[in-house]
């Protein structure tokens, strides 16, 4: 599903070169729920950005869904992001000027769906996260947990194969964090592959597998006990 081999990523500024990832290899199978942990600055976000085609690696090979994505144009990468990948960010990243309906509409318009299909998907995904009644609200009128649920709805509306989440619960209290986690587990059970960066060891443990990134490399691969939790109520 996702296969990285000897991925390197370095950032060059005037004075120093930072090696954010080096000799980074990882394989994620279809349907997996992988949690990523590691110290601050170890390269977790860099990994996620490369996995999600937001950044290009300095070297190495990356196969997404069996396709080598190294040589793709910016345009092709945009289309791939749009079709196969859903993002969930720590800061929710909803567009403040648009109501919930229009926020979820953003990636669907880039996809080129017609108005009817978009409406169907928006309503369905808002339903899934329990916010159907709030479609006309602005993000600022929602709590953090609700905003993150909208962000998840936005990621899900395109029915992506991959869901990439960078500390999705980082800005939430523990109750809301648990709700979001349950939602992700529910989505995973329906077949979406999830990679989630988190600082919370409890949440990390609930994934099928936890990988630790230390100093730009995968330090330790171990299976974690599979907590099969029931989906949200």
């Amino acid at each position, binding site marked *: 599903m996702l296969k990285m081999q000897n991925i390197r990523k370095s950032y060059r500024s005037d004075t120093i070169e930072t090696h954010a990832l080096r000799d980074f290899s990882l394989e994620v199978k279809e349907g997996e729920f992988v949690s990523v942990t590691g110290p601050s600055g170890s390269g977790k976000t860099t990994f996620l950005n490369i996995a999600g085609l*937001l*950044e290009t690696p300095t070297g190495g090979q990356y196969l997404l869904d069996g396709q080598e994505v190294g040589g793709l144009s910016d345009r092709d990468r*945009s289309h791939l*992001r749009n079709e196969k990948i859903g*993002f969930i960010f720590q800061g929710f*990243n909803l*567009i403040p000027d*648009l109501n919930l309906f229009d926020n979820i509409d953003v990636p669907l*318009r880039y996809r080129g769906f017609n108005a009817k299909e978009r409406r169907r998907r928006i309503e369905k995904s808002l339903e899934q996260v329990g916010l159907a009644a709030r479609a006309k609200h602005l993000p600022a009128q929602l709590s953090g947990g609700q905003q993150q649920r909208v962000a998840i709805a936005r990621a899900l509306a*395109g029915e992506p194969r991959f869901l990439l989440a960078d500390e999705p619960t980082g800005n939430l209290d523990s109750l809301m964090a648990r709700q979001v986690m349950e939602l992700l587990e529910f989505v995973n059970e329906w077949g979406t592959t999830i990679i989630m960066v988190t600082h919370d060891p409890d949440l990390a443990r609930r994934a099928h597998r936890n990988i630790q990134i230390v100093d730009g490399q995968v330090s330790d691969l171990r299976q974690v006990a599979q907590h099969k939790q029931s989906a949200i109520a």
Partner: protein
Amino acid sequence: MLELRPILSALWRHKVSALLIALQLGLTLAIVSNALVVISERTERISRPTGVAENEIVTFNFMAIPKDYDMYDAFRQDLDMIRALPGVASATISNHVPLSGSGSASGFYTEPNKETGAMGSNYYTVDEHFVDALGMKLIAGRGFYPEEIMQIDPSSNDRPKVSVVTQKFADDLFPESDGNVLGKSFFLGGDDHPIEIVGIVERNLGPWPNSSIAGRGAFYPAITDRWFYYIVRAEPGQRDEVLKLVEEKLAERDGNRVINANTMEEEKAQYFAGDNTMIKVLSGVIVLLTFIVALGIVGLTVFWITQRQKQIGVRRALGATRTAISRYFLLENLMIAATGIALGTAAAQIFNGFLVREFDQPALPVSVTVFCALGLLAVSLAAALVPALRAANISPAMATRSV
């Protein structure tokens, strides 16, 4: 896939700044389109055909020092001399110079002994060379015979027997005659002396091209020593040499006088100096206003893009191509511009109504507003283009990297 509705709803949350730019655009449109009408009217005034060979003609006039100077003898000798000079195509003597801003006008009637209801027209006293010397086109009848030329004392009651008039003079005085005015006579005010029309010239704007009587002209076969100018037409391309040569020879023939030489082009430029200044000032206003509105658009677009960097990164992460990002900001700009132009079109008409009423300015045709609107639309898009293209370079990683 145009995303007009969401752009509009997002814009609605920033309506004050959007509306301010739209208003500025509208105001610019109102002023620019009205300025353009005035400019085109003035340009037309200046460039309309004058009926004379304005670029080949030089004029001379002199003041004689001694009191008992024989003017008519001087005219004869001067003109004979001038006509023999190389580069001179033709020469005449006239009381006034067309396009110069100084002339004579009078009231004309179709019947004798009338005092009211005159048609105003310019008139000239000229010798038999006038058609050729002025470079006019005789379209009917004849010019003057040498023996017809009289010497007229302006204070006397001498009247010419014949006249050559401009087409416009004929059409305006005899509107029914369909241009067939040869052989018809006209009269001066309170006078029963008929003056017969023997020829028609195509056009002569006269000494005051901006006046209401411009284009009407009557030529009399006469010479007067009160006002006189030698009007000399040079062979093509030799005007400046002829000017110098004639001035030199006039002084040579009789040094006891002060000679004043001029090109008709210069006189015309002086006459239209006000119009020319108006054109320059209004053009400056157009350029300045357009520049300011373009600056405003660049400023607002850059500001909004900076403010929405994160949002742009998120959109890129969600699948927007670079093109989609640029298009977003261009469409947003287009909506603001369209609002401004709609407001401006209305404002332009209102403003023009005021100018027409209060300042007697020309009416604003729809085509000019449309032309200006399209021009401003292009300026607006061009102003937004560079910021919009730069916005497309914002990295999708902005979505995860910035807080």
